[in-house]
Structures are given as structure tokens and as C-alpha cells.
């Protein structure tokens, strides 16, 4: 009797994970060459030099750190020592604000471009030039004009989330089937009602796909942006822990960034499924 595909896939996933952890553990367990040295000097050099312990933390170290962060995610012991939960909270807050601002701007403009061939042609050169600019390239300009590092990060999120949503909305609206629009026209449905009753539901799957791409990019960019602006956020945490040479914390942060990114993506994927209609 064969089990369901999901079950078998889960078994394979677990085995792969176990193998990875095992290899990781074995690779970081070994001890390298040690050098005899002055005890005072040895204190400065740490375990890597004195006992030959690997500089890379093993899975057990990382596991212990993750557990430590999970137990107390919201502690605040000053500027450079805040819980992982607080750092994540800041990042998610910035992403949410920048992303929602982008939604408010991109979707109406996307409808305008999708509905008006004139505006489509007129705005096209601007979009083509602005779209490929790395969001971080806006950072100095944002810092100079906004004069607030936190808001600058929000602005960078806004600008990077804007384009996929704008382009997808315009495309989705422009490619709504002619016959559905004709149905609305023969029923003498006004423009505003047509937008909400025909164009929006018809283009919703494409718009949501754009929003899903955008949230992915926003989550990628926030880490880099926070490394630049500093202060708070998961990106700052990663850079700070690098400066502390705490590789365990860096790896922990990497894991957490991945998990949060996956959750954000799944939320949008679920929303996309909710508005998708079978034809």
C-alpha cells in the first residue's frame, strides 16, 4: 500500500533535513591544529585558536540560540540588545507601511494605465526608466529629503513594491476579456460600477500575483535597507551581530528572515487563490 504523496514527500523532507544537520554537525565538530601560546594571549584568541574548535557554530549551538530567542523574544536591554521579536516587529511594520502605501498608489494608477491607451503610452517611458532602478539607489536621496532614517527605509520599501503591482495591475486590467466589458456596456453600466463589478474581479488574480511578487521583493529589500539605516530591524540585527562576530545569531536571523518571508508569501498566495475564478 502506498501512502499519499504528501506523506511520502514529508518523509523525504525530514530525511534530507536530518542528513543536512548531521553533516553540519560533523563538519563543525572537528578540531583543527592548536598552537601553544601565552595564556594571556590565548584568552584574547578564544576557543578557535586554543582548542582548535571550529569557528562555525554547529547545529546544537544554533538550536540553543534559537531556543533562547524564542523563550524571550521581546526583551529590551538598550540600543544594541533587543529581542528578536522586537527587531522583526520593526521590520514587519516598515514593510507593511511601505507596502500599503504602494498598494494605494499602484492599483489606481494601474487601472488608469490599463483602461486608457493614452495614459498607457504616456506613462510607459517613466515606468520603463524607474522600474529597473535598485531600490537602495534611492536611499541617499530619501535620507537627504526625508531626513529620517526609519521613514527612508519605508520609502525604499514603497518604491520597490510599487512596480510589480503597477505593471501587473495595468496588464490585468488591459487584458480583461472584451466580451465581459461588452456585457457591461450593453447593460449601460457606468464607468465606476464597471471598474468594481467587472474589471476588478476579472483582473484580481493578476493584481494579486503582482502584490505577491511585491511583498517578496519588499522583504528582500528591508534587510538591506535596515543594514544601511541601522537602529532597529532584523537587517540591523544581522549587521550588528556580524560586528559582534556572533555567527550563531547571524544564522538564527537568517532562519527567521526565511520563515517570515515564507509566511508573507503564503498569505498573499492564499489571497490569490481566494480571488481566482475557474473558467
Amino acid at each position, binding site marked *: 500500500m502506498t501512502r499519499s504523496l504528501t506523506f511520502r514527500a514529508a518523509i523525504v523532507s525530514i530525511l534530507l533535513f536530518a542528513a543536512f544537520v548531521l553533516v553540519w554537525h560533523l563538519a563543525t565538530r572537528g578540531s583543527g591544529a592548536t598552537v601553544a601560546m601565552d595564556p594571556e594571549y590565548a584568552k584574547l584568541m578564544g576557543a578557535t585558536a586554543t582548542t582548535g574548535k571550529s569557528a562555525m557554530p554547529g547545529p546544537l549551538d544554533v538550536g540553543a540560540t534559537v531556543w533562547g530567542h524564542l523563550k524571550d523574544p521581546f526583551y529590551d536591554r538598550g540600543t544594541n540588545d533587543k529581542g528578536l521579536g522586537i527587531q522583526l516587529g520593526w521590520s514587519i511594520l516598515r514593510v507593511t507601511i511601505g507596502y500599503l502605501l504602494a498598494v494605494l498608489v499602484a492599483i489606481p494608477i494601474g487601472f488608469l494605465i490599463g483602461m486608457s491607451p493614452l495614459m498607457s503610452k504616456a506613462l510607459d517611458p517613466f515606468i520603463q526608466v524607474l522600474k529597473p532602478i535598485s531600490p537602495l539607489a534611492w536611499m541617499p536621496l530619501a535620507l537627504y529629503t526625508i531626513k529620517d532614517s526609519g521613514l527612508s527605509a519605508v520609502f525604499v520599501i514603497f518604491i520597490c513594491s510599487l512596480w510589480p503591482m503597477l505593471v501587473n495591475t495595468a496588464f490585468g486590467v488591459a487584458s480583461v*476579456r472584451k466580451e*465581459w466589458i461588452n*456585457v457591461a*456596456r*450593453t*447593460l449601460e453600466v457606468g464607468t465606476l460600477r464597471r471598474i468594481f*463589478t467587472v474589471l476588478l*474581479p*476579472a483582473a484580481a488574480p493578476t493584481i494579486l500575483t503582482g502584490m505577491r511578487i511585491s511583498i517578496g521583493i519588499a522583504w528582500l529589500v528591508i534587510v538591506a535597507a535596515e543594514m544601511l539605516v541601522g537602529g532597529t530591524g532584523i537587517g540591523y540585527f544581522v549587521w550588528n551581530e556580524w560586528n559582534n562576530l556572533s555567527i550563531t545569531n547571524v544564522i538564527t536571523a537568517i532562519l527567521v528572515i526565511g520563515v517570515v518571508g515564507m509566511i508573507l508569501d503564503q498569505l498573499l498566495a492564499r489571497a490569490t487563490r481566494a480571488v481566482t475564478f475557474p473558467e
Partner: protein
Amino acid sequence: MTDKFISIEGISKRFPAAGGGTTTVFEDLWLGMERGTFTCVIGHSGCGKTTVLNVLAGLDRPSDGAVIVDNQSIEGPSLDRAVIFQSHALLPWLTVMGNVAYAVASKWRRWSRAQVEEHAQRFIALVGLSGAERKRPAELSGGMKQRVGIARALSIEPKILLMDEPFSALDALTRGTLQDEVRRICQETGQTVFMITHDVDEAIYLADRIVLMTNGPQAVLAEIVDNPLPADRARDDVHKHPLYYAVRNHVVDFLVTRSKSYTDADKAALDRRNPPIVRPGAPEPAIVSGESASPSWPGLSRPSTSHAG
């Protein structure tokens, strides 16, 4: 000034051609339709039938000429003229009820939700879809989808029903059933109908008048066939009527040969404002001349198909 309910007055449609110049799809087309009549248009692809229908619907504008409906010139789409689309054009994110109710709510904007649904329900029942109200189009068969399209068009109680090959995407059995229902509903409600079809038998069964168009480009309305079959014809024996094959042969002859061979001289000789009205099978010299002692209607000369029953 017109005594016709619908009057197509000298419409033309021209497109800019690829290499400069213009392509004329059809030119100077005149056609009148009386209230409560069923008109079918037959012609090969590219003769501009769909354009004529879209002009009637107000979805397209003629390059020249005008269409008068009920003494008013058509300026755009109107709730007075309902369209049944070839591809049913249901909104897939709405249920059957949602699709019909959308049309009803568009016509009577002040109605309450309950009023709208009650009215929509009547028309869903009319096309025999009671019980499927909460289904989405994707869950319906092709025939059921087109029934919803018909219910949606009828639910706004239009003055004119425009149908663009409504049954061409359906299998033969479903097509027959739906033809019967459309015929019944149109007779009950006294609809004025303008329908495009490729199916000669469908046209003969449904239409009071069959409009024949020559091949495009520069298509013309060559003649109007006045259907001689009785108004109370029924599907099961319409093809046994002695005049059935006279009409059928006339239309098929036109489609097979005359629609192609229609010369410029013929076009010049045509009185476009009053295209010839032909009544096949009637004692008319134009049709029986040349045939020696043939019966007054050619239908009898065919082997009988009714002896098996």
C-alpha cells in the same frame, strides 16, 4: 418617418487597410424589421454580419449611415437591446443567479436585492435552470451556460434581442433543445429578434425572414427570403413541410454559388434600399422558369423522407 421598428439605413463599415487605403466590409446596407419578427442573417465569414449586429447593439459604430430603433437613432449600447453572445460571456466569478441579477440590477437600479433576485429567479426558471442558481459558470455544461446567457438577456425585458451565433458552440442535441426554447420564449414574449447564424436549418426553423449577404469584402445584402413555412411549425415535422426544401435549396444555392458569383453588375443593379424579397416555393416565375413541367414547388421533386414513420 419610418414604419419599421428597426431600420438600418445605409450603413457602411470601412477599415484602414494594411498597405494604405481602406477595406470596405460592407457598404450602403438597408434593412427594416417589423416589431415582433424574427430575422436571421446568413452569410459566409467576413461578410460583416457580426459588425451589423454590433452596430445594432451599439457596441460598434458604422462608418456611414444610421440605425433607427423605435424612431430613435442608436448612439450607443442600450438596455432596450439585449445581446446573447456567441461565447455566452458569463462573468465566471459570479454564480448563475449573480450573472442574471447583475443584468436585472443594471436595469432597475433602485430595486431591493430581494426584488432583483425574485425577478432573476423567474428568468432562470424560464430557461429551465431552477436549482442551479448557486452554481458558477465553470460548473455548467455549454448548453446550460448559454441558457444563463439567454436568461440574462431576457431578464432585462429588452425591446430587441440580438443573437450572435448563439448555438454554434453547442452539440447538435443541445442546440435543438435551445432552439425550441428560444422559439417558444420569443413567441410568448413577442420579441423582435435579430440573429446571426451559419446553420440553414436553424434559420428556417426560427426565422420569419432570412437575410442573405454576399461574401465580403464589399458585401451586400443580396436578398431577403420570406419564410413561407407556417408560424406554428414544430421541430419534429417542419422538415416534412412541402415548402421546406424549396426554402432550404434556395438558401443553400445562394451560399454555395450565388454568394460568390455576385458580380459588380449585380451589385449595381441592386436596389439597396429595397432589396428583393423572395418567397421560395411560391408560384414565382423567377424560380420555376426554365424548368419544364416541374411542380410549382421543387420540394416535391425530392424523394420523400416521411415514409419510414
